[in-house]
């Protein structure tokens, strides 16, 4: 039932879907190759999905893999990622989230080549210093870029004012008292308020993918 629903959703989104329902079929499909992304349900009827992933990686298959599972214990999550899965989604999930994660995985895969930092709805191009958020794109100044880069290196992590100042000012440089607020204001003006989240008293962050 999941497979059927997903196949229809993915087709609607414009993906071409090969749907196999057992370990044997999965192995054959992995061997055949040619896929941009594999959605691997660990609850296959006749095989352990993790073993399937392990053997695929061992023969050098580098296809992007997103694991779908009912098990969310830290150990199995770590095991999946250690085996070379790109991401991990615990059932049940909304198709919107799956699609977002698939996009993120694909972008990350592509981004490795083109040097981009990518979070849920934000991309920072490290060469052109272009910031894209929710459809709006703008090129950042050097300090804006340094600030955005610091935040996007670890999405979901709050950076305090002092931490940000340390990142955007060199040694011995005079720190202006409200420089951080001014930079954030100007970044928000360029691509939208939601690009940087403010936690009063703690600092700023960007949302996790």
């Amino acid at each position, binding site marked *: *039932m*999941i497979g*059927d*629903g*997903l196949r*229809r*959703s993915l087709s*609607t989104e414009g993906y071409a879907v090969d749907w196999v329902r057992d370990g044997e079929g999965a192995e054959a499909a992995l061997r055949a190759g040619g896929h941009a992304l594999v959605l691997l349900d660990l*609850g296959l009827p006749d095989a352990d999905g993790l073993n399937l992933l392990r053997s695929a990686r061992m023969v050098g298959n580098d296809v992007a893999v997103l694991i*779908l599972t*009912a*098990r*969310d*214990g*830290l150990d199995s999550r770590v095991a999946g990622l250690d085996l070379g899965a790109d991401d991990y989604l*615990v*059932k*049940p*999930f*909304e*198709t*919107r989230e799956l699609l977002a994660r698939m996009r993120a995985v694909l972008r990350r895969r592509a981004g490795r080549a083109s040097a981009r930092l990518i979070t849920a709805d934000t991309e920072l191009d490290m060469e052109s210093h272009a910031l894209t958020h929710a459809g709006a794109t703008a090129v950042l100044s050097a300090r804006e870029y340094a600030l955005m880069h610091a935040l996007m290196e670890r999405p*979901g*992590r*709050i950076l305090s004012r002092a931490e940000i100042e340390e990142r955007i000012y060199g040694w011995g440089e005079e720190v202006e008292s409200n420089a951080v607020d001014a930079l954030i204001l100007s970044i928000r003006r360029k691509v939208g308020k*939601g690009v940087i*989240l403010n*936690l*009063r*008293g*703690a*600092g700023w*962050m960007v*949302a*996790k993918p």
Partner: protein
Amino acid sequence: MSGASLRRTALGWMTALLAGIGIAAMLAAYLLARGEAADFLDGQLRQVALNAGPGLVDGRSAAQAPPAADEDPEDQIAVTIWQDGRILRNDPGVDMRRPERLGYAEAVMGGETWRTYTRAAGPVTVRVAQRDVVRSEFARNAALGAVTPLLLLVPLSWLVVGWAMNRVLGRLDVLVGDLAGRSVSATTPLPTQDVPVEVAPLVGAMNGLIGRLQAALDAQRRFVADAAHELRTPLAAMQAQLDVLPASDMSGSRDALAEGLRRASRLVDQLLRLARLDGQEGAAERLDLAAVLIDCVGDHAVLAQAKEIDLGVAITASATLHAPADEIRTLIATLLDNALRYTPAGGEVEVSLGREAGMPVLAVHDTGCGLPPGSEARLFDRFYRAAPPDIEGTGLGLAIARHIAERHGLGLTVENRRDGRRGVLARIVLPA
């Protein structure tokens, strides 16, 4: 109701035994002494009779001699001498009639029972008599002598038995303390060393019970965990199907369905978390509470922004804690989650880590609807919900939070704010 006291039972039996032995010893001593005394006194009577003759008559009668001060007149021997049928001498208290038979005899004279010995030598007949009372007294004294030390033993035995019992039972106190101080989830067996051999089977049986109980609890926990896991796949399938429904179609029922699915998924998540908490404790590590708090706040930033809630953090003290990180994160996340959930859009949630009376305190203030009066007592019960029914929730969050807090010795309280503003204040007090 508990059974008879071991100590009292042992004392009772000990006393009964000593009393039994005492009575037996008394009887035996009495009978033996009576026999001995009879032989001895008979010999004495005979000796007196052999030595007494007409010569005794010349002397003063024994009756006329003044009795010695410590001499009981009853102890005195009465000697009667006849010669040719005529009485030569007689002591008071006995008949003057000459007995027919020679040798030993019992006779009642003057209302008392006497033991007599009669000897005839030619024309002279001598009868020596002694009161029977003397013999009984002799035996009684012997019996008393035998029973006295045993009677003294009774209180002594109480002391000794009481002391010994206290010692033995004192060793059980350790066991009692261990049992009383045990948490429901403790799985270690009770120690069997230092337990008296007789009590060891009881302790063994208790350990067996603890083991079986633990197995039952484990099975229960595994069942909940497995059930929750198994529910996830069908829920995911329903979600996948729901997501391919065209959004325009019957959008009211579609939204209701989506909402129901979200609730079911959340419930499954929390059931799993609870089942996991009931099991083995995770690996504890040294945590910087401020860092964990900042992380948790970061996790909730998107939610806060989506609801336009002003989420503020004030860290004025540092605190460390030795506990599994994911449990403490769950605890803080639950409080944050509740605060954001029940605070309406545009509200304010204030998270702080400070120090009160020397103890680190983590507090979450919200500007939500507050707790209805009377809900405090049930707030931490599983599936209890104090909040208005139109706000989604499983009723498991605070049950999970309290579980974690208790496990790590943290004081968790949730109450209405007391600073005049509407809303809830949740506090975690760390041990100093």
